[in-house]
């Protein structure tokens, strides 16, 4: 079965979603990610959706859920790489993903996580 790979980068986890997700895949991702946050003692999660051309309300809600779960496990989630067309569609759907932090690309998302980590330890 298809799985979405989760890469470890220092204290952060990087998830790149490149294919259209169906329900089962999303559930697997949630399970994999939450257990990896615990085992790797991750402090941040980067979800890269730069290769997604279509994001529907299902994926939108799932990303919101993942962010909520990660926060419970004391990890910050940053959603990066959203395309302009996707952003417009999500807003028109009424999903502004209020609980999720966002950044333009992986680079900036990483900076944002590092900044948040520094603030936490200070």
């Amino acid at each position: 079965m298809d799985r979405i790979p989760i890469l470890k980068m220092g204290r952060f986890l990087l998830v790149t979603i490149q294919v259209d997700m169906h329900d089962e895949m999303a559930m697997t991702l949630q399970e994999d990610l939450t257990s990896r946050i615990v085992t790797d003692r991750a402090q941040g999660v980067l979800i890269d959706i730069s290769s997604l051309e279509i994001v529907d309300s299902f994926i939108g809600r799932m990303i919101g859920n993942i962010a909520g779960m990660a926060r419970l496990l004391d990890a910050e989630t940053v959603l990066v790489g959203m395309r302009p067309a996707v952003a417009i569609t999500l807003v028109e759907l009424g999903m502004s993903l209020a609980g999720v932090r966002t950044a333009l690309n992986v680079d900036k998302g990483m900076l944002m996580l590092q900044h948040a980590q520094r603030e936490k330890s200070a």
Partner: protein
Amino acid sequence: MSQARTLAQLVRKNEQQIFEEWVAQQMAAVTLRADLMKESELREQSREFLRVFTEALQSGTMQMDSAVWKPTKDMLSHISRRRATQGFSPVETATFIFSLKQPLFGVLRKDAAQDQGLEDQVWEASILLDKLGLYTTEIYQQSRESVISRQQEELLELSTPVVRLWENILALPLIGTLDSERTQVVMENLLEKIVETEALIAIIDITGVPTVDTLVAQHLLKTVAAARLMGADCIISGIRPQIAQTIIHLGIDLSQVITKATLADALAVALQRTGSTISRTAVKV
């Protein structure tokens, strides 16, 4: 359909007379725009039209949608379009055709001694000219509408610039009312620019927006939400005192967005957030 041929013969026979009378009619009409068109041009148009018109009649059909009438219609569209852009009114444009009636009927009346009934002929000719007249009006309207829609598009493009104020800071000065269509364009432009410049902060300046109602506010909030999804924070600036009052009276919630009274204040916040500082040095007076 020999009536068309008879008419064609008549017109051909009396072409010079019809032409002179027609031009005289047009010159005498109150709708003549001597300021927009010279007499020589009018004469040339009239003569050319009469020639094409007779040729079409010669074919023996009065069906406007047949191929023989195409040159006539083409010429009429050309004239109508030209006049529409020159600034003629619809009445002034249609007069070109309708003033042909009198000279044409005059010739028909003189010829009434012939075997065919005068009434029938006048009726046929009248229908024909009416159709042509309506056609000019239609074309006139079309060209006017195309001008309007083109201007609307240009206005849309002109009125939504996204400027780079500083490193990582964009400004979006909005001028005019925000409707759904414009919001779409504004949003697209802003998001594209965010990708292009990797901006972290976008300042939406609404100094030029005359009124803010619930709909406009909703559009503004949509734009802010979309920019946030792309990782850029928005600051709304240029809120006039009256608008601040309206927003509160309408119960619009802008508490999720940073708002500033002036663009300068917004820029100061944006610079602070991106880690830039401005310092003042002594200036020689």
